[in-house]
């Protein structure tokens, strides 16, 4: 049996947020944040509880308050301050629109996100990425 994963979806737009949640729900617990500031708070507090760390954060780039790059940067700083490194770090998918090439490069190179997905994020592509990162097993559909 696959381990139940913990996801944080950070997205200000309701339809995008809901669709991601519906697609990820079979694989674990989905939490949501609708802006960057809330996301940083949720991430910071997630380390207060045992096994509270998120396995994956799906992060929109352009949001009210802190943008996706800033959230990613703060997440990596929190991890450094807690001595979390390597395989124990939270995986991050940046979610963006098709015309955001500059933003995607910044997220990959500077922020060290694991992948970027363009809207509309298909179930096939999402599950492919989850498998590539070994968050789910080959052929896994739910837990």
């Amino acid at each position, binding site marked *: 049996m696959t381990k139940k994963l913990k996801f944080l979806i950070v997205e200000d737009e309701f339809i995008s947020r809901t669709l991601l949640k519906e697609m990820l729900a079979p694989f674990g617990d989905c939490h949501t944040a609708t802006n960057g500031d809330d996301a940083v708070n949720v991430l910071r507090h997630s380390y207060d509880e045992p096994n509270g760390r998120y396995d994956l954060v799906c992060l929109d780039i352009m949001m009210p308050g802190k943008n996706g790059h800033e959230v990613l940067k703060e997440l990596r700083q929190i991890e450094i301050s807690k001595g979390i490194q390597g395989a124990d770090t939270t995986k991050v998918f940046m979610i963006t629109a098709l015309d955001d090439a500059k933003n995607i490069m910044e997220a990959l190179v500077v922020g060290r996100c694991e992948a970027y997905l363009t809207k*509309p994020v298909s179930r096939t592509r999402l599950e492919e990425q989850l498998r590539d990162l070994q968050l789910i097993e080959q052929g896994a559909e739910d837990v």
Partner: protein
Amino acid sequence: MYESVDKPMIGKSVNQKKSIESIRLHLTQQFNLPLEQIDMLLPTFIATLGTHMGNLEKALAENNPVLLGKVGHTIKGAFLNLGLPDCAQIALTIEEKGRQGGSLTDFKKLVEDLRLLIKPVLE
């Protein structure tokens, strides 16, 4: 397999039925969600589009290019998710013109075009 279900379509015009069927088909193919789930989500998604359009109209009435650009970005993502690329293209133009501080005339025309395109879905 994609099946047509009449239940969520009661009381809707032919144009609206067609538009909603097309969104429904897109959601089925793109996200591979069960039809029952899509039919449950769809009314809220359509209502959300209406709210986004309202926000766009409000930003236009305020003649606020920055806000128009931001709402344009938000609604672009919604259109892409619902399989409405023509609407997403106009939203992208609004977003870009908002960033560049476009003129009220530009925005009026773009929002009007968008209003006409999305009318069958929202009517």
